């Protein structure tokens, strides 16, 4: 890789051993990719804190929080003292909600260790947004801004909806970026890889949040890590809003590895089909009609067998304030069934709005809980005795059966709230 004088100096240790280790990792990573150079970034979204008993023991074995950062965020087996982060840095979601230790099955000791870790990285400059949706709460990249983001659902939103430029980074490459302000100039930082490779032509209207989740899951399965462009001869009807695109991208990046998509007439690099393709001849043109929609629904619901539900989880990716409002309206005056629990996940900042608007109280009065920082897939936490869950997220329905061995039903938010209140899955294809 070609380095600038500044980058060479960082690699040679001018800025200390932590920055040197960060540059060393970026070199190994960039050469693995086949990148030619690094690109400047001042926007990193990452998991940084220590949350597991394994990391706690790692810290206690010597070196403390610096040892955790050295190994898990820099792939450095030498413990280096970590300086303040150079870049604007946002913390992503965690392996639990530290404010719900009982529900999450957390010992007091782990919560204390996490709090210490949170204070530590906050002191280094990580902003404790603690969400998979940083673009909801203060980190909204502008078009063309080079970023180093983790979290596949946030990456696909950044690239596709906002026009920011990021690859799907990992914990270690983000750690290196925070200390250097650099990331390999490869993939979606460049123009050509952003152009569409596959066309998906809509033969049915795609309108509801569930519709967009189904379409995303279908597309991810088909194109895997390529770049799809969604197109309708009649034009995309109702313009999809944030919850729809959030769900769409999360689904496409779960069934496949989609990191960038276009929707003609909606997303910023696709005013026309021709612009989205940028001269590419489509590898394939797929049609999405009623048969594809139905088959996708069946696929996401493949594990759902039992009608009795013990758990309903909403908020994957983290709910917007309008989704919390919808859930509150649906459940107001009803009660969560005695054999069932309802957990809803949202960023801390949005929960504080929900508190003020009274939505939190409505949900709690009904017996549900508004949680932050995590989700069940991240935390592996579900109510005791959970065998079957109901979800309004294709992504969560993709991951939970694999991670926890539970059955999952996927449906609309209204079907999920109804399941929470009756303890039964009465949903179905609609």
């Amino acid at each position, binding site marked *: 890789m070609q380095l600038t004088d500044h980058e060479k100096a960082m690699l040679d240790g001018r800025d200390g051993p932590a920055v040197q280790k960060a540059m060393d990792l970026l070199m190994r990573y960039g050469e693995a990719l*086949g990148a030619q150079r690094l690109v400047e970034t001042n926007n990193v979204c990452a998991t940084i804190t220590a949350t597991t008993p*394994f990391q706690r023991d790692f810290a206690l074995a010597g070196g403390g929080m610096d040892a955790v950062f050295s*190994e898990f965020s820099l792939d450095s087996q030498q413990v280096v003292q970590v300086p303040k982060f150079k870049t604007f840095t946002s913390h992503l979601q965690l392996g639990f909600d530290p404010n719900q230790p009982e529900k999450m099955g957390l010992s007091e000791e782990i919560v204390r260790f996490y709090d210490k870790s949170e204070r530590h990285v906050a002191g280094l400059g990580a902003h404790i947004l603690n969400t998979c949706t940083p673009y909801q709460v203060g980190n909204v990249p502008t078009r063309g801004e080079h970023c180093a983001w983790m979290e596949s659902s946030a990456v696909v939103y950044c690239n596709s909806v906002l026009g920011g430029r990021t690859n799907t*980074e*990992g*914990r*270690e*490459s983000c750690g290196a970026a925070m200390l250097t302000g650099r990331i390999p100039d490869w993939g979606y930082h460049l123009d050509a890889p952003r152009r569409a490779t596959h066309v998906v032509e809509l033969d049915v209207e795609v309108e509801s949040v569930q519709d967009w989740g189904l379409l995303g899951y279908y597309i991810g399965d088909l194109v895997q*890590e390529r770049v799809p462009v969604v197109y309708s001869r009649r034009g995309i009807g109702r313009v999809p809003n944030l919850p729809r695109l959030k769900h769409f991208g999360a689904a496409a990046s779960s069934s496949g590895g989609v990191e960038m998509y276009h929707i003609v007439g909606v997303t910023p690099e696709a005013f026309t089909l021709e612009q989205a393709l940028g001269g590419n001849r489509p590898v394939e043109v797929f049609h999405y009609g009623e048969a594809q929609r139905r088959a996708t629904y069946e696929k996401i619901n493949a594990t759902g067998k039992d009608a009795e539900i013990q758990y309903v989880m909403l908020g994957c990716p983290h709910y917007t304030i309008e989704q919390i409002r919808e859930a509150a309206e649906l459940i107001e005056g009803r009660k969560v069934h005695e054999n069932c629990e309802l957990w809803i996940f949202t960023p801390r900042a949005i929960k504080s709005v929900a508190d003020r608007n009274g939505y939190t109280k409505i949900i709690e009065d009904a017996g549900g809980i508004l949680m932050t920082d995590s989700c069940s897939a991240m935390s592996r936490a579900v109510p005791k005795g959970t065998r079957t869950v109901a979800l309004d997220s294709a992504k969560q329905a993709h991951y939970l059966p*694999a991670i926890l061995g539970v059955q999952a039903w996927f449906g609309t938010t209204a079907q999920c709230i109804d399941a929470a209140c009756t303890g039964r899955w009465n949903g179905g294809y609609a």
Partner: protein
Amino acid sequence: MSESATQQCVAGMDSVIVIHGRKVVPGVAEGEALVTRDRISGWGGIDSRTGTIVETRHELRGQSFAGKVLVFPGAKGSSGWSAAFHLARLMNVAPAAFLFNEMTTKIALGAVVSHAPSMTDFDRDPLECIATGDWVKVDADRGVVEITKRGQCAG
């Protein structure tokens, strides 16, 4: 890949097959091959503590990649890919080597932090040349993979 190359791959029962590629992570390793045509999810797709594939509907579900030469098309899914394989290394259950076709940031970083010799950009498709159970020597520094077909020793 040319037709003759395919035939060479298939006809390799009584000889060592050699294929060439680009170094992704330096080093030399050998082990039994574990081959899949399904892409692999890291976080949520593997159990890092046991080195096992857990993804629903994955053709390798329940199988261990610990100490194996993992041969697969590429990575998919969560950005926790590297962290999942990083943890597998700390648990001593990482693959011995990675051989794959599709370069992504997930697989590049995951291979780097696994410290497992890794290669891509092959002159012949490793998915065609290598079957589960074959003995595979990976010399990423020289860009060479040597494949001894299973059954050769017995037969």
